[in-house]
């Protein structure tokens, strides 16, 4: 390797001699994932409130999982983190695992706050305003 000779502490380099085929393949993967997400987004929009809560929630979870897949491809291929050595990858990824708990804890907290307010902290039955579907407007 003729490059990066002036970093003596770096003892080997990932092989960069490959072509751009992989980059374009990942571009198409990201585009298709985005289009699927948009398809699901339009599905939620078109069906509106006729869908049950469970269907809406599971569709949103699927969109979230597809987003995580996009994040994986960007970080691993475009940012070349997949080419680094395992211990380095772990110092980045392990702290980010805290997000799993942050998200669960805070969203549950928000939900609990809503329930407490709707029921005056449990002193009456829940009477949520009935939602009326608003037609698109400007």
């Amino acid at each position, binding site marked *: 390797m003729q490059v990066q000779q*002036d970093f003596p502490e770096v003892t080997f380099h990932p092989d960069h001699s490959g072509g751009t085929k992989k980059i374009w393949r990942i571009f198409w993967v990201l585009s298709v994932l985005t289009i699927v997400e948009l398809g699901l*987004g339009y599905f939620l929009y078109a069906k509106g409130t006729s869908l049950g809560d469970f269907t809406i929630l599971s569709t949103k979870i699927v969109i979230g999982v597809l987003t995580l897949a996009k994040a994986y491809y960007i970080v691993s291929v475009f*940012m070349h983190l997949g080419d680094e*050595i395992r211990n*380095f990858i772990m110092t980045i990824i392990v702290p980010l695992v805290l997000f799993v708990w942050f998200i669960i804890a805070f969203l549950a*907290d928000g939900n609990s706050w809503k329930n407490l307010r709707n029921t005056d902290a449990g002193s009456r039955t829940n009477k949520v305003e009935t939602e009326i579907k608003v037609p698109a407007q400007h």
Partner: protein
Amino acid sequence: MGATTIPAGTKWWSGGKSPFNVNYGKVMMWYFLMSDAFTFGAFLISYGTIRFSVNHWADPNQVFNSFPFAGHANLPLAFVSLMTFILIFSSVTMVLAVHEGHQMNRKGVEKYMILTIIGGLAFLGCQAWEWTHLLTGEHVAMLADGTLDVIPTTVKMNPWGVALSQEELMAALKNTPHDKLMAIANTMHHGAEHTAHQVSDSQLIEQIAASGIHATKTGPIAFGGYFFGITGFHGFHVFSGVVINIVMYIKTKLGHFDQRGHYEMIEKAGLYWHFVDLVWVFVFLCFHLV
């Protein structure tokens, strides 16, 4: 690989060596990006918490349904999808620039850096349009005092609440002062502006009610703050990324990296740029898709 033989008993963590086999600048860029991910994550989780804590939140398909030059056509998600594709594509041109850098091909790096800068500027232009559209929007909403007004989406006003029923609308119209009724009537008849003395309140109310107007209650005030705060913080990252890319382009053009013998600065700028794309993927998820 394995170009250098490493003696047995080497103390990897006592300095002078790279235990992760990555040089200092790149390691620090990664740790900066990790801390930035926590900042964005905290913002988005805070937004999620508030959104989960209220009974009604703005429906993104209504808020983000316009497209430049498409007038009042209802095109949910279309414009933000375009923004998403612009950013994905500029991420591809960035990784191609890094690739050309590995090959020590200066012309190739220059070409792809220019394309990446153009992509970044296009994204910023789209965001400017989106913000202007929301900040200058005209929506008829019922304020807390029970009167109607024409309001935009700002950090202090959110017109994206629950729709008013016909009875609620009629009651609110009766409370609304004359000048506000004029303003509402004027949003429905662009071009044919009324003057204050021509029509009485009851005529205006009749006219507004007959037009099949869509009026809403105001929504949670936090919507604008979160939207403009988070997309603004992201937009500022895009802006600084464009500035960094321009500096990298100039340094490439001046041959600095050829003199240095490697294009690692392009890789570091690339890491930052991909991170900006990565954050947008999540902003797009939280504000526009779900």
